[in-house]
């Protein structure tokens, strides 16, 4: 495998491959001679196995596990005649069983992958067919390099495609790469150089150029190639011209392009990594104990071997042998052989079936979590999605939660709430019906009356001086001018794409170009009510929906109808229209002739083209923005009649109040990045030719770049704005500061030259950033905005519960400190009683001093004798309870000092955080988020859970022990990286406190029980060695021995592991503190294993010696004795389960009944029909004899009672004298309920008696 992966890369590294357009190859060319035949087709296969390779490959993989190798070793050992203990075939039962179960599971999983592959491979797209001379519907799997494809808006890109033509006159198109890299902003792609000019004349058949491309690489944004025209002209092409598989075409009616990489050679497939394997804490503890089991096994084997040697040595002379020693070897040699025999007969000590059982249990647990109706989101029709199957119990042991804020705690519904212009604050009170709005969509606002007046004044001013626009400018006051510019900035300084009408591709899904007349005919046949053009579109959409299946159903656009009164409202449609990728919808699209509205689901790309409803009767353009914030700003501007009407690469047309239509020239766009925290545009006014830089960004980055001023009015303005900003932040609003800078042509040109140089530089990303910063200085303040992002419902309750559960909650956000603190208070992350520790240092030393000061303060509160230096693991629990709880706020800058490798501040910082019940990190970058999680996980050695919804949380989610994705608005990337996907933050409470608690408790007890069960059985066999001369004889029938663990006693542990509840869900929810049990890992502790072993030792002693004593000096034969012991052991094991079970359900009872019943049934059948089977010693009729003997019944009862007595007594004493927290609250809970019942009974009694009276 290693070889064939490596070699092709080396071979092709130097080569350039040539892709020939397929339509230039004459039809009917044999496949072998086709120039593109060496490149793989577009069919993908993500399955591990094929029908043929399944058996060998699966076995090969399974034997990679140490456990299975051990099995194999045992089986082989059994083939040595001198050692062999069991029948050769019988000894294979366990390994066959385990391998078989695992193989079935693997096959099942692979089948799921196969089905999804099939669905994807059978999606369709339109490919140019040279015979029919038009685009023809083709399955994805039949696509190949060299094909020309036609894609419509919102269509998934089937392979890596080089763009040749787009619907845009400038040859632009946009793709959403969310599926690939999680970035939600749209990326622009161009047609190849030289083709932008001939967009309208492009004809697929005319394209006859070959394309030379690099061999495929995993690097998503590296692509080089050359288009070699027939004339010999060579045109270089790059990433800008390439559409990548799994991306979605956006904001473009259609594109046409040529496939250069297909199938497994596409960037998407090359980057498709397999799932990660996480191991839970409990599993690690269990593995440690399994190692102890191995030690115990070896000790037992050594004792047995020594015993064997001593026993043999007691028969001194070799020629004077007792008749029962058949082959005489020297005692030492015999001891060595017997050692290996012991390894075989005591093999169940290593609980190999435990691993299979755990896997099955976890799958069932996951199934039940998935189907919990309380975790079902009605609104979004989403359940909990468990992507990782093997860490369910980890959910019950979470100690630290790291949460993103936006979209996770908040709705990500951006509402323009306040703005301050020229030092004047304008409030926009909330609108009542906001509840029903979809997330990610900007909300209509009530315009502020005063601001509206001012705008109207501006407009009046324009009318007064209609003849001279220049004159109007001079007439305006500074305030009005600032208001005007403020809104121009809102409208201009963004990357919003304006669409007048929805995207529409005239080619339908089957590749036929539709003419309008055809549509009309269709309309008439489809719907009599549909007379308007809108309805026409819909009817066609309706039809095309059934044509092409979408590769992933989660992204399907949904049609919603809103019934409302405003019939004048023209239909506003999202880009989902006219896509050929609509999925066959079970619901027919009903139509309302005059009011139709398409709303995109909040699901996948909710944030990136968002749709805004029109506030007035005007035909409002459709804005599609990168982020909901931008959309909210543009919409706010629109509300105040400062309307962005059109925007192309070089110009933006704006309706400016007071000036009318102005077409600004977009000279330069300085896109947003998280380190600059700002975004700017440089525009040139069409009339004045004035160059202006408009900037919006975080207050921290903008305010520091303001031009120094001596003007007291200006200083007051800045001061007022800062006051307002602080007020906004205290309200929990996200603030953005708007500023501008007037540039002279010379200034800009000078910068531009430098910038161009920076772009050419090697380390260009950093240099471009620096270059941007150079331009964004000397700014003039215009104002600021406050946008509200409301908390999701249930968030405060959930966070309060999590904190009460003792989980330390960290919220990591990019927001301003005041905003973050405020949201923290409203989310109950901080409570008013908490002492707030703030870390906002501007230097490393300052950070160090603050941390030390806080630590000293805490140290003073610690009980005497413990200080932080001597006890580095002291924590919250060590603090006396009467001291107030602490919460820590740390900002991004301080974090950089703390996380800096050289600063040595990590340890003190983490020590400090251990004394805080919640931590808030503001202004944190995505990388810092992941790094914090990593540091906390590694240094504090705690179990961490990270929850987030956006692409910026992905690294954090992957770093944490448990990654939870919110399948919300910011795309699927977080979900794809997560182990569990919830649809809302509030479900985390039940998810952790109930399911996590249960899963941990169940699994811990199941594992302990499993270890107990196996050990007891092994000890029984070991005690027998005392009576059989340490010869390695087994008194039980080999069938029983092999099936005991695998079949007879396999169900009760699963019943515990899946269904047992130590406390009901409502109790766990009402008392979050009960989560402590799992958080501190108090069910499965290091000593739990040894207690279990001690118990199993005691029980085996009782069982064995009671049976041995009862049957001593009798005619009992070895098999009857063994059968009696097996069934006694079975009863004891089952009664042990009965003691352990905390909630009885029919499943528990059934599992036990099946166990014991199965055993007896098997015994009867086996002993009745098997006179001589499998070459085993015959145990024909033994069970009848055993059951016929009264000694059997007496010993079984006696042994069961005596064996379970200690565990039972301890359990009773503990729960009545010193109950643990769960039991205590369970008892209280029951008492309350009983009290209520009593009350009810009593009242019904009194009422009935009064009736009698």
């Amino acid at each position: 495998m290693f070889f064939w992966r490596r070699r092709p890369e080396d071979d092709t590294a130097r080569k350039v491959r040539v892709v020939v357009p397929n339509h230039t190859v004459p039809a009917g060319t044999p496949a072998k001679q086709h120039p593109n035949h060496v490149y793989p087709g577009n069919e993908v296969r993500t399955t591990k196995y094929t029908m043929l390779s399944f058996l060998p490959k699966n076995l090969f993989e399974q034997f990679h596990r140490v456990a299975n190798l051990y099995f194999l070793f045992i089986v082989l050992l059994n083939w040595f005649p001198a050692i062999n203990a069991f029948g050769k075939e019988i000894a294979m039962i366990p390994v066959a069983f385990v391998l078989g179960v695992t193989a079935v599971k693997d096959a099942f999983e692979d089948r799921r992958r196969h089905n999804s592959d099939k669905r994807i491979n059978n999606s369709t797209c339109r490919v140019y067919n040279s015979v029919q001379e038009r685009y023809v519907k083709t399955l994805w799997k039949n696509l190949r390099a060299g094909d020309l494809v036609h894609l419509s808006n919102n269509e998934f890109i089937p392979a890596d495609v080089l763009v040749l033509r787009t619907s845009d006159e400038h040859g632009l198109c946009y793709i959403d790469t969310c599926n690939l890299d999680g970035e939600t902003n749209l990326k622009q792609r161009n047609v190849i150089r030289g083709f932008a000019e001939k967009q309208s004349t492009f004809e697929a058949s005319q394209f006859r150029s070959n394309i030379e491309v690099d061999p495929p690489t995993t690097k998503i944004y590296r692509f080089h190639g050359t288009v070699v025209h027939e004339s010999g002209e060579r045109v270089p092409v790059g990433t800008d011209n390439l559409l990548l598989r799994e991306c979605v075409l956006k904001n473009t009616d259609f594109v046409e392009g040529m496939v250069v990489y297909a199938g497994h050679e596409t960037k998407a497939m090359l980057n498709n990594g397999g799932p990660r394997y996480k191991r839970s804490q409990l599993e690690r503890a269990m593995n440690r104990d399994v190692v102890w089991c191995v030690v115990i096994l070896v000790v037992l084997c050594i004792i047995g071997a020594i015993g064997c040697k001593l026993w043999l040595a007691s028969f001194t002379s070799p020629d004077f042998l007792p008749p029962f020693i058949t082959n005489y070897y020297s005692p030492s040699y015999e001891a060595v052989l017997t050692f290996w025999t012991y390894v075989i007969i005591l093999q169940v000590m290593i609980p190999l079936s435990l691993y299979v059982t755990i896997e099955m249990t976890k799958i069932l647990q996951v199934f039940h979590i998935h189907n919990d109706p309380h975790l079902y989101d009605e609104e979004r029709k989403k359940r909990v999605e468990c992507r990782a199957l093997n860490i369910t119990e980890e959910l019950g042991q979470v100690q630290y939660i790291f949460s993103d804020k936006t979209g996770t705690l908040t709705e990500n519904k951006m509402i323009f709430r306040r703005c301050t212009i020229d030092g004047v604050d304008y409030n926009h009170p909330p609108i009542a019906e906001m509840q029903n709005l979809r997330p990610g969509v900007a909300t209509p606002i009530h315009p502020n009356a005063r601001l509206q007046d001012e705008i109207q004044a501006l407009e009046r001013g324009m009318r007064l001086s209609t003849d001279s626009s220049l004159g109007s400018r001079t007439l305006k006051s500074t305030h009005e001018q600032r208001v005007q510019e403020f809104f121009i900035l809102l409208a201009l300084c963004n990357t919003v794409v304006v669409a007048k009408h929805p995207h529409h591709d005239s080619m339908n899904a089957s590749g036929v170009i539709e003419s309008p007349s055809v549509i009309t005919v269709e309309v008439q046949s489809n719907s009599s009510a549909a007379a308007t053009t809108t309805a026409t579109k819909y009817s066609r959409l309706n039809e095309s929906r059934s044509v092409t299946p979408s590769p992933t159903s989660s992204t399907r656009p949904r049609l919603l109808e809103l019934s409302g009164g405003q019939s004048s409202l023209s239909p506003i449609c999202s880009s989902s229209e006219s896509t050929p990728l609509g999925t066959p919808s079970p619901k027919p699209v009903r139509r309302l002739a005059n009011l139709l509205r398409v709303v995109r689901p909040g699901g996948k790309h909710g944030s990136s083209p968002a749709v805004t409803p029109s506030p007035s009767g005007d035909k409002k353009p459709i804005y599609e923005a990168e982020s909901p914030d931008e959309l909210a700003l543009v919409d706010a501007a629109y509300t105040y009649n400062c309307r962005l009407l059109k925007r192309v690469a070089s110009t933006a047309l704006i309706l400016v109040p007071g000036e009318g239509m102005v077409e600004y020239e977009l000279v330069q766009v300085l896109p947003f990045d998280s380190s600059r925290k700002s975004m700017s545009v440089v525009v040139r006014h069409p009339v004045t030719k004035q160059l202006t830089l408009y900037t919006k960004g975080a207050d921290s980055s903008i305010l520091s770049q303001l031009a120094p001023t001596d003007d007291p009015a200006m200083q007051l303005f800045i001061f007022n704005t800062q006051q307002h900003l602080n007020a906004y932040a205290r309200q929990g609003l996200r603030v953005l500061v708007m500023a501008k800078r007037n540039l002279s042509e010379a200034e800009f040109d000078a910068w531009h030259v430098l910038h161009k140089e920076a772009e050419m530089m090697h380390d260009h990303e950093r240099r471009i950033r620096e270059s941007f910063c150079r331009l964004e200085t000397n700014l003039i303040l215009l104002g600021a905005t406050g946008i509200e992002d409301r908390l999701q419902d249930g968030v405060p309750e959930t966070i309060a519960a999590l904190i009460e559960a003792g989980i330390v909650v960290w919220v990591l956000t990019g927001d301003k400190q005041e905003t973050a603190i405020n949201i923290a208070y409203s989310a109950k992350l901080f409570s008013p009683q908490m002492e707030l520790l703030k870390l906002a240092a501007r230097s490393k030393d300052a950070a160090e001093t603050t941390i030390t000061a806080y630590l000293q303060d805490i140290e003073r509160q610690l009980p005497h004798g413990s200080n932080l230096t001597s006890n580095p693991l002291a924590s919250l629990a060590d603090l006396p309870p009467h001291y107030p709880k602490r919460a820590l706020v740390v900002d991004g800058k301080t974090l950089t000092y703390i996380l800096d490798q050289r600063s040595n501040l990590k340890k003190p910082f983490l020590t400090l955080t251990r004394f805080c019940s919640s931590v808030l990190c503001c202004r944190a970058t995505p990388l810092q988020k992941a790094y914090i999680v990593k540091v906390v996980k590694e240094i504090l050695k705690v179990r961490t859970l990270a929850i987030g919804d956006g692409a910026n949380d992905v690294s954090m989610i992957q770093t944490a022990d448990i990654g939870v994705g919110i399948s919300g608005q910011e795309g699927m990337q977080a979900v794809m990286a997560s182990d569990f996907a919830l649809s809302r933050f509030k479900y985390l409470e039940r998810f952790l406190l109930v399911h996590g608690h249960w899963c941990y408790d169940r699994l811990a007890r199941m594992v302990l029980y499993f270890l107990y069960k196996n050990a007891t059985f092994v000890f029984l066999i070991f005690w027998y060695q005392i009576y059989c001369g340490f010869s390695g004889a087994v008194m039980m029938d080999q069938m029983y021995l092999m099936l005991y663990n695998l079949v007879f006693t396999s169900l009760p542990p699963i019943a515990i592991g899946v269904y047992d509840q130590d406390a009901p869900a409502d109790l766990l929810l009402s008392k979050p503190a009960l989560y402590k049990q799992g958080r501190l890992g108090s069910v499965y502790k290091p000593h739990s294993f040894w207690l279990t072993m001690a118990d199993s030792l005691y029980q085996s002693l009782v069982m064995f010696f009671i049976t041995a004593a009862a049957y001593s000096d009798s005619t009992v034969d070895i098999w009857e004795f063994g059968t009696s012991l097996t069934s006694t052991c079975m009863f004891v094991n089952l009664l042990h389960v009965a003691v352990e079970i905390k909630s009885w359900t029919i499943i528990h009872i059934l599992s036990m009944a099946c166990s014991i019943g199965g055993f007896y049934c098997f015994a009867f059948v086996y002993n009745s029909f098997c006179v001589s089977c499998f070459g085993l010693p015959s145990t024909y009729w033994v069970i009848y004899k055993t059951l016929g003997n009264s000694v059997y019944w007496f010993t079984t009862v006696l042994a069961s009672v005596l064996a379970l007595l200690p565990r039972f007594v301890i359990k009773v004493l503990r729960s009545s004298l010193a109950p643990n927290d769960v039991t205590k609250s369970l008892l209280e809970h029951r008492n309350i309920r009983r009290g209520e019942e009593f009350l009810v009974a009593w009242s019904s009694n009194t009422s009935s008696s009064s009736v009698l009276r």
Partner: protein
Amino acid sequence: MCADVILKDPTSECTCDITFTLDKDFAGKVYMYYGLTNFYQNHRRYVKSRDDSQLLGRLNPKPSSDCNPFTTTNANDTRAIAPCGAIANSLFNDEIELISEKLGQVKLLNTGIAWPSDKKMKFNNPSGDLTEAFKEYAKPPNWRKNVYELDPNNPDNNGFENEDLIVWMRTSALPTFRKLYRRVDHTATGFVQGLLAGNYLLKIKYNYSVKPFDGTKRVILSTTSLLGGKNPFLGIAYIVVGSICLLLGVLFLLIHIKCGKR
């Protein structure tokens, strides 16, 4: 002592007489057992050393290798042993007679002592004349008789179907064990009520050596009780465990009264 005689020469004849007195009547069915101590019939190699297929009457010149080293007599004689294996080879072969002082010889039955299922299903003679069938097979080295001479008087109890052999072949679970040897024939006059009190003589033809394993031999006469043989263990254990449970019950009750109201 016969034990030493036998040890020196396993083929020599030695008889041993033991007298005993029954103090009271043994009412009901009386069984005679022989008991061995320190005989590890449950040793791993020993338990395996048999060929169930051969015992089913399917004679094969090459018995199962499980029987090693008792498959063939020795290097010169390549005849297979029937019944092969260490278990069969070590068959208990003392012959015990019981003589009542008053009534003379007690008639003992050597049938009905094995499990009926064993006799019916697990042990079958080869078809045809036994002597003919076993002509090509050697007797186990320790045996004094051939397998077809085990009970010449009763063809149903001869060869592999001999009940003494069947009883012996059911290997015991513990190194101290007893095996059913004979049933007293209660149809004979004087024995209808059981075994009456009085003096008896056990006449043992001493063939079986217990010296090599430091064991002892016993003869046990017993009537059947509900619990099989006489074993006081279960009774005592029940009393002890019952008392403990009772005590705990009282303790729990006290605890419940004191603390249960919380």
